[in-house]
């Protein structure tokens, strides 16, 4: 099979599939090398639910309009300005034509899910979620004659004279080599390699949970960076959220999300509070809690709520730990009971008038004289039964990546590489230096996947 392919695409998620399909539609013979076995194909993309899409009038499931400028402003807010404007605008502008492109290739959309109405204007939800999307693309790929190898992790790329000369991958215990004319890297970040995370973060990272695929270990990324391919971002940057501490080490996905923090107090293993739980509405604070919990002893937090708050947030996959008294709850959570009671008492005493309480808006129902304060939704924790969840840091993806230009092309020694392109998570750091906007990951993957496919095929022909 050595030279029978024009293009090899490394990875089997959204970005890889968009690149492969685009190239095959232009007539190229395409090989997809996917590290995961078939049931786990699709990387982190199989866990997604929507992509963020600019549109000037109602489009598919999207209501109203969402302009380039508004989209860009939303991005700037979350990245604190650490954004490559040129590439970001390219992704934003490209998103509008993605929606019909996706539909033509079998992706189906659905109205914004119950509990996520606030996104119905900006984010288009995939029917069946990301795995439905990935399945549709694999069907399309098969119809185009794209060859897919599962359980075929790429181990090495030969970089020579600013060019990829060959790819090594293993399958069934043996090493194979291919030398396609062009290569697209779409193999995600490195978050599943917790040793690497630990090198960047310190030993605390060993306690992190990985929300998505165990196959994104950054092997290709490391291999290319070692050979001098240009890097963007640094390994300490990652997107991390606080998730249910009982989640599996990998692949727990969306259902391990906990939305109850704003109605709770959160304590560490010494039963001490450490941050304002009511700082802002949850979607806006979701991402900082990953780091907050990571900074606590043993990287664990405990959410404490009482009966009156139980139904105010979306149910999550594991039922809360329940007890009739705070002492019992402390026992079940392995917290020092006297400390927990003291912390709750102190918090309760600092709560004031709660008549303005409003679960979905900033209500300024705040504590007074407490450090750290709770600035919204501060209601005393008094009504039995009491409930608790453990919180752990759940890593979504890492930002360290390959630096690309507006053609998704990688570079080495400040010169573009003649036959290497990158798309998706593995180059997302070229666009965002930090922070994250819901649904932008799939937008980057789709837009830059298509660009990479287009450029690779132009080179191969």
């Amino acid at each position: 099979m050595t030279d029978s392919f024009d293009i090899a695409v490394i990875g089997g998620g959204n970005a890889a599939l968009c690149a492969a399909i685009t190239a095959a539609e232009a007539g190229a013979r395409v090989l997809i090398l996917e590290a995961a076995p078939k049931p786990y194909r699709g990387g982190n993309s199989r866990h997604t639910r929507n992509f963020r899409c600019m549109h000037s009038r109602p489009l598919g499931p999207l209501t109203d309009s969402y302009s380039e400028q508004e989209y860009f402003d939303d991005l700037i807010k979350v990245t604190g300005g650490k954004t490559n404007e040129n590439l970001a605008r390219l992704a934003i502008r490209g998103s509008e034509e993605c929606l019909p492109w996706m539909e033509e290739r079998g992706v189906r959309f659905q109205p914004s899910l119950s509990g996520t109405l606030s996104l119905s204007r900006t984010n288009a939800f995939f029917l069946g979620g990301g795995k439905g999307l990935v399945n549709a693309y694999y069907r399309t790929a098969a119809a185009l004659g794209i060859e897919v190898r599962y359980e075929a992790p790429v181990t090495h790329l030969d970089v020579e004279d600013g060019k990829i000369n060959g790819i090594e991958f293993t399958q069934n215990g043996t090493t194979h080599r291919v030398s396609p004319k062009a290569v697209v890297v779409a193999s995600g970040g490195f978050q599943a390699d917790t040793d690497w995370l630990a090198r960047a973060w310190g030993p605390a990272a060993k306690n992190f949970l990985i929300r998505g695929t165990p196959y994104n270990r950054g092997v290709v990324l490391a291999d290319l960076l070692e050979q001098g391919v240009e890097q963007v971002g640094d390994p300490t940057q990652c997107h991390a959220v606080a998730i249910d501490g009982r989640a599996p080490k990998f692949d727990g996905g969306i259902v391990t999300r906990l939305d109850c923090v704003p109605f709770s107090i959160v304590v560490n293993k010494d039963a001490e509070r450490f941050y304002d739980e009511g700082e802002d509405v949850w979607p806006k604070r979701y991402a900082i809690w990953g780091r907050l919990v990571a900074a606590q002893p043993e990287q664990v937090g405990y959410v404490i709520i009482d009966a009156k708050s139980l139904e105010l947030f979306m149910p999550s996959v594991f039922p809360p730990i329940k007890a009739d008294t705070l002492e019992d709850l402390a026992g079940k959570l392995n917290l020092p009971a006297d400390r927990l009671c003291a912390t709750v008492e102190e918090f309760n005493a600092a709560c004031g008038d709660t008549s303005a309480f409003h679960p979905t808006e900033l209500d300024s129902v705040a504590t007074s004289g407490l450090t750290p304060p709770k600035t919204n939704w501060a209601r005393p924790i008094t009504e039995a039964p009491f409930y608790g969840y453990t919180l752990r840091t759940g890593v979504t993806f890492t930002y360290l990546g390959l630096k690309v230009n507006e053609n998704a092309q990688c570079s080495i020694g400040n010169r573009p590489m003649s036959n290497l392109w990158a798309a998706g998570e593995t180059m997302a750091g070229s666009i965002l230096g930090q922070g994250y906007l819901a649904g932008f990951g799939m937008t980057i993957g789709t837009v830059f996947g298509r660009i990479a496919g287009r450029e690779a095929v132009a080179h191969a022909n």
Partner: protein
Amino acid sequence: MQIDLIQEARRQAEICNACRYCEGYCSVFPALHRERVFADGDITQLANLCHNCRGCYYACQYTAPHEFDLNLPKALAEVRQDSWKAYAWPAGLAKLFDRSGVAIAVGLVLGFALLFLLAQALRPESGKGFYAYMSHSLMVAVFTPAFLLPLAAIALSLRSYWQSVGGGRLTLGDVWSATRSAGRMKNLEGGHGDGCNFEDEDRFSQARRHFHQATLYGFLMCFASTSSGTVLHYGFGLEAPYGLFSLPKLFGVPGGVLLCLGTAGLAWLKTRADPNLGAPAAWGGEMAFVLLLFFVSLSGLLLYAATGTVAAGLLLPLHLGAVLTFFLLTPYSKMAHGFFRMTAMAREAMLAREARKQ
């Protein structure tokens, strides 16, 4: 009902409720997302809303080997199957649902055919067409109770079902809304109009919906054929055999063809689909039921084709034996699903109406 089956479905429903990615596939998910905790009756109701289209299985990121081990189509199929048994009346006959479906159906068809053959010994002196073999009054004497008793049994089953899922007052509007959605097989469209995942893993296709529709409408037309025959007989004194352009034939022939094609198609699809996404133990019984319906329609068409030949003498008892078997097994076979599903959908319509009022 079996608690372990309900418990497994509940475990999975709780995961879906935290995920919601499948919301748009069918009416199971909006009903599921309405609850926070699932009573046994809620699970039974969800199970009877599910059409086993499998869209939510192939789209699920948590199917085995993932430790969450999601297989909602299977979990709901198991509860559904069990609910039909649990609410069957009389309870003793619920066993008929199980396994040896083909054997039961074949045995019954042959047994009844034999009875009818014996009845021919008492062959009428006069009579045209079928009635040359068997008197009209004998047919009526056999089929009237064979039709009405199973209906009564179904009605009692549905009453138990209704009580177990929480009761409430239905309006005609609710029933009409359920009928409309069943008539279009709306939920088999898969929410996006591409159909369901059945015979070829995650590929969406309309095959199942179309074959099912052919079966349903074919069946209804055959039923209309018989009913119009009865009306002609009693109302207008017009007796069979009827000409090709009479109502019974205009309904019966195309209805029979549709039913034949529809059931053959469903049986074929069933052999292609992954049995582990349904209730594996019920596979045989379901297949037997589809084949029985196929046999009813085929023998009916053949009988018509054979009018006036000697073959009719043998085909008539076989056909009638099959029809009789079908009627009697209705409350204890896959046929029950239609009644339960309609009830479940009417319940959804009722709840939606009540929610609008609030």
